[in-house]
């Protein structure tokens, strides 16, 4: 019974998503080519390519991860290793992070527009978009890192302390490498979430389709481009599907890179004396 129900659920979700992807492929695949990936956006996206948009997207992602990983992982390490979890400070910070997880993405957009673009004077820029997304994926990173650290064998820490290792050394040399696979899962989830976000970026990183020259330039993310093509540019549907396929491929590449990087790093550590 359970096996049949499980199979049914797995099949149902698979079929639904296969349907979605099939529709994307049918509409979008004919336009995919090297010229599409390397070309400038012309005619509001109805023709040409998406090269500047890919660059902007990667720039936004880099800013986002550059802020979110140190903050999120640092916060989780502090909560797990450097303070009592039941203490008041830890409880307040955990509560704040959980509350942050419940902020709707469009509210992040409003916040980013006022805080980063206007108050901090970053304007419409890749930096401003990346920082806004960093706030958005922060709770995801804190939670997954925390779970990874907490699921480590509990005898690691007293053993390390017995050897006279400092907490800093224990964390850097023992705990973090052991928890790395879990942290990487959190990062890949965060990457997916950041790359798929539209609402928060419309108000922060903006609409410009020019190849960005620096992080303070406005740059249109792929998700925003897809939104504009699907809802604002007549006859943009096919190009929207092509861009969506590129976005999926990009997520696949970035996620695989993150996993491969962490595995490579772990292997090198393991083989080092």
């Amino acid at each position: 019974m359970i096996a049949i129900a499980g199979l049914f659920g797995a099949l149902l979700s698979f079929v639904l998503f296969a349907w979605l992807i099939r529709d994307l492929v049918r509409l979008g695949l004919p336009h995919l080519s090297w010229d599409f990936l390397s070309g400038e956006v012309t005619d509001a996206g109805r023709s040409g390519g998406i090269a500047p948009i890919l660059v902007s997207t990667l720039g936004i992602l880099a800013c986002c991860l550059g802020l979110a990983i140190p903050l999120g992982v640092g916060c989780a390490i502090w909560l797990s290793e450097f303070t009592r979890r039941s203490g008041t400070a830890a409880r307040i910070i955990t509560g704040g992070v959980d509350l942050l997880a419940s902020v709707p993405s469009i509210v992040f957009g409003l916040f980013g527009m006022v805080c980063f673009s206007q108050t901090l004077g970053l304007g419409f820029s890749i930096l401003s978009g990346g920082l806004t997304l960093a706030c958005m994926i922060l709770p995801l990173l804190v939670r997954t890192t925390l779970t990874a650290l907490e699921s480590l064998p509990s005898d690691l820490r007293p053993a390390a302390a017995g050897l006279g290792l400092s907490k800093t050394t224990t964390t850097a040399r023992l705990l973090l490498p052991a928890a790395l696979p879990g942290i990487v899962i959190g990062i890949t989830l965060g990457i997916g979430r950041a790359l798929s976000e539209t609402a928060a970026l419309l108000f922060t990183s903006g609409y410009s389709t020019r190849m960005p020259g620096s992080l303070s330039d406005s740059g249109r993310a792929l998700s925003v481009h897809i939104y504009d093509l699907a809802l604002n540019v007549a006859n943009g549907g096919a190009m929207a599907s092509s861009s969506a396929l590129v976005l999926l491929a990009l997520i696949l590449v970035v996620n695989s890179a993150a996993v491969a990087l962490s595995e490579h790093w772990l292997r090198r550590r393991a083989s080092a004396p």
Partner: protein
Amino acid sequence: MLLAGCGGKESSGTIMVTGSSTVAPVVADAAKEYEASHPGVRIEVQSGGSLRGITDASTGVADLGMISRALKQDETAKLTAHTLAMDGVCVVLHQDNPVKQLDRQQLIDIYTKTITNWKEVGGNNATIVVANKAEGRSTLEVFLHYLGLDNADVKADVIVGENLHVIHSVVGNPHTIGYVSIGTASAEEKAGTPIRLVITDGKTPTMESVKDGSFPITRPLNIVTGAETSPAAQAFLDYLMSTEIHGIVEKHFFVPVR
């Protein structure tokens, strides 16, 4: 020497243009052309709605604002409108819907739910699904102004934001009635989307009938300027107002004015 000096002055700096999502793709394309022939000039085009164009141009956040309607009386004190192109708003139905024309009174009755079945206006026996635009959209203001209705009078079944969302709604449900920019509707119809542009008060919605002013529901697409305009922005504005951009305007299915 003098000419060179002038050229140097007007061809440097960044020009900020914000506002209507309908106008933004046209100006973005024009900006690309302009930048190519004026090295040193950067034009930032940001969309976000007509009201944003008004606000940004009057506060000076943007050099130029884009709006997809005429200026209202209380706005003319601070801003000046420069018409970039004309656009019409037309009613769209599914191709399978046999209704080919509607007059103003019928539209009023449909949008206030006095008429609720397509057979009352010569169509099939099916309930009419009324699609209305969201609060604040220029197409909504233009359309309701034509019908003489307040938005509170309209009884809608579906409220949508963008022009293409209206068209997708009509395609997804053949009993839907909606209204969109003629430019968007013509482009989609030409691409084979199963929609029909409805003859309104006996006038066929085409770019020609918008151009000669015979189509009853039209709106200007405007660039607005505040109290002061920088020389660089003025030069770009002059370019937008020239005949050079007619090709771009027509490519986006709008009607050039000069």
